[in-house]
């Protein structure tokens, strides 16, 4: 008799415990799903930010490299003149340097006696706008305007939105002061 009672009691307890275990599993699964989802979204944000930063620092690196060469040319040139899409500089040793903005690239061509001696390019990310302007008698500015956030280089790409830019100043000697 005692054995029967024990068995019956155990089966009741087991039934209760199984229901409890199901609720536990559901609760844990919900919590785990929430935690995993949250971790996933945070990880995605971090990776996206890293990618944006990596591209931005690459752009800064190209900007710094272009600025160094541009300022060096500016320091050596005798006369500088703005063109439609660039800047032409005449150097003291009958050489000429032409900086041309073509889409998202800056081309630098060294010309001597009408022949191209060397050519280099500084490539920015697609969608970047490059413009030269004269700031004052001795100062020229290269403006590098980044594409808007989320820009994709497709045919129907939108170019509106917030666009940030970087200015690079270069000074040219005053022609009258050159011996």
């Amino acid at each position: 008799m005692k054995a029967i009672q024990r068995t019956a009691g155990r089966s009741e307890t087991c039934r209760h415990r199984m229901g409890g275990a199901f609720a536990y599993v559901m609760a844990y699964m919900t919590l785990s799903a929430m935690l995993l989802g949250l971790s996933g979204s945070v990880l995605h944000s971090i990776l996206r930010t890293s990618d944006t930063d990596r591209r931005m620092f690459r752009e800064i690196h190209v900007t710094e490299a272009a600025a160094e060469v541009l300022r060096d040319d500016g320091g050596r040139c005798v006369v500088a003149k703005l063109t439609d899409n660039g800047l032409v500089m005449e150097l003291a040793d009958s050489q000429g340097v032409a900086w041309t903005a073509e889409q998202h690239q800056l081309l630098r061509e060294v010309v001597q006696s009408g022949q191209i001696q060397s050519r280099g390019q500084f490539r920015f990310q697609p969608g970047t706008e490059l413009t030269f302007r004269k700031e004052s008698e001795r100062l020229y500015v290269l403006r590098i305007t980044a594409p808007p956030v989320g820009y994709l280089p497709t045919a129907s790409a939108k170019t509106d939105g917030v666009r940030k830019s970087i200015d690079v100043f270069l000074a040219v000697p005053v022609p009258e002061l050159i011996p």
Partner: protein
Amino acid sequence: MKLRSGFMLVEMLVALILLATVATMVPLLLKTVYQQRQQERFFRFAQIELANIAVRLKANDLKGDVSDDVKLSVWFRQYCPDASVQLTRSKTPEIYEGLQSYRVSISRPDGEERPDLTQALTVWVESVEEPTE
């Protein structure tokens, strides 16, 4: 039943403590990463801006008292709106006659109880002879 409810309470407490720890740590870690990136970005942009100021100084583009005239560019303010620039004219040793040195520094606050971030550059400019009467 008594045993089971006690067990549930312990589990709940452990889970809550773990969640609270994670919830406290994650924003702090994210904030630290964000601040580090902001710092790096500031230093890189400040370097470009300092080079621009140096070019303007050398080209004598800053009229009048350069200490008052020097300002941060509009583009730089887009990236670091809370930054400020300072230009100090330092005393030049006699051996560098004909040259004038300027110390240009750009700084921005870096959170509470932390020193400002500063990037500085010393620029040597040919001193212009002031006309004597």
